[in-house]
């Protein structure tokens, strides 16, 4: 075990409450390089909160997060809550974990191309010409090369989400976090986004995907985690978990999608 590979993302025992309501009650996860993990759960099960704790968009009340072997330093403030000890470290780790949001969250005042090079140029401080060349290649890949000078408001939802995925890739992240990437899309636009995500999975990208797309979870991911009321209720390879899960709740949950 001495030379076991360092996990891309390792999360230990995450707890998070909003007021009296405990949303996450001790969740752990290890993602190796190249893993595609789908995180499922009913709404309110805490799956998005869990994902947002990994890059500290939500600060967990308990727990430890390690990205590529580097643990995010946390300390207790005077009120006793956990807070990041080093903001610079948090910024750096966030730049290594790109996030794709449910409502795309593209920067409205920038063109698609400007959205893509913003992080690489201003956060990673890389040469602009190089970033533009890479961004154009990424836009080609997600089918938006012709739309590079469009503003987000001039694009359809599916195009915006593909641009947001390209923006995430432009950061050359160690892992990608997807927070319900297709939930805000019209049904006929879901396919184009899933197609891009599937191609990323096939490239061997490390991906954590909070989703309601059962077909994606079942056919594309290496592992499926099912959260229920803030704990991991079922966890395993999709072929096992979808066919004979021991969890009654998970069987009920997928039953709702097969009606």
């Amino acid at each position, binding site marked *: 075990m001495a030379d076991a590979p360092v996990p891309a993302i390792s999360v230990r025992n995450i707890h998070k409450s909003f007021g009296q309501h405990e949303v996450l009650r001790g969740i752990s996860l290890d993602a190796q390089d190249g893993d595609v993990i789908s995180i499922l759960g009913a709404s309110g099960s805490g799956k998005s909160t869990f994902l947002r704790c990994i890059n500290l*968009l939500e600060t967990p009340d308990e727990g430890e997060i390690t990205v590529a072997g580097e643990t995010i330093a946390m300390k207790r403030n005077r009120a006793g809550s956990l807070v990041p000890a080093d903001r610079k470290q948090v*910024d750096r780790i*966030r730049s290594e974990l790109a996030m794709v949001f449910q409502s795309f969250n593209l920067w409205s*005042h920038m063109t698609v191309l400007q959205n893509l090079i913003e*992080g690489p140029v*201003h956060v990673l401080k890389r040469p602009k010409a190089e970033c533009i060349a890479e961004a154009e290649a990424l836009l080609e890949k997600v089918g938006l090369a012709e739309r590079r000078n469009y*503003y987000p408001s*001039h694009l359809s939802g599916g195009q915006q989400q*593909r641009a947001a995925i390209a923006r995430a890739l432009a950061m050359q992240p160690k892992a990608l976090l997807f927070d319900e990437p297709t939930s805000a899309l019209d049904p006929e636009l879901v396919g184009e986004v899933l197609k891009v995500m599937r191609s990323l999975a096939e490239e061997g990208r490390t991906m954590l995907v909070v989703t309601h797309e059962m077909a994606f979870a079942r056919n594309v991911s290496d592992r499926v985690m099912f959260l229920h009321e803030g704990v991991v209720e079922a966890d395993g390879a999709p072929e096992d978990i979808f066919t004979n899960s021991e969890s009654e709740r998970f069987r009920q949950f997928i039953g709702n999608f097969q009606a």
Partner: protein
Amino acid sequence: MDFDVAFLLSTFVKLVAAVPMTLGLFACSVSLGAVFALGITYCRVSGGAFLSVFARAYVFVFRGSPLLIQMFLIYYGLGQFPAVRHSLFWPVLRDPFSCAVLALALCTAGYQAEIMRGGLQAVPSREIEAGRAAGMSGLLLFRRIIAPIAIRQALPAYSTEIILMVKSTALASLVTVWEVTGTAQRLISQTYRTMEVFLVATLIYLLINFIIVRVMALVEYRLSPHLRERPVSASDGGRQGEVHG
């Protein structure tokens, strides 16, 4: 009333000579006011309870009381105190132009601070979150994401405030600054031709504001390409509805 073109022309020339003074009052007070407003806005949104109360009180006082009274208090009022007369600030506070600029700046700062706060509040939190998720924070996040969006949102209200400020400079005539309105009143007291002189003065203010409105509209247009119609270029004209799969 006879239409005395020669008089109108000579009045126009005399009033135009006072335009640099009006523009000087305007430019100094708007820019100084913007600096004050940035400070007040920072106090208001930075989260500190004491600073926030200070900012609210400032806005309440300077928006809630007449600018003319503020100007009189600064020019005529402060000089009553020997401590002020012997202070470092006396060279500024006994000069009518500086006092007028100060009063105008303090007043517009209250309005501008509210406009800035409104612009900041209108920045979608989703876009800020995307910035944070990409590793931005502090000044970088403000400079690249928050400020550009806030400025675009605030611009229409800001244009209005700037036009109001051009007109407010007329009050400086009451603390003996010879800008366009003051010069007009002096001409009237010499000629008793109120109507003609004030009409020419009105024309001059309209010309100044016309230019300012056009410039602000241009700035707004340049800064808001994302709010305009989507571009139609030769390469994709006619198939905008197409979705690439």
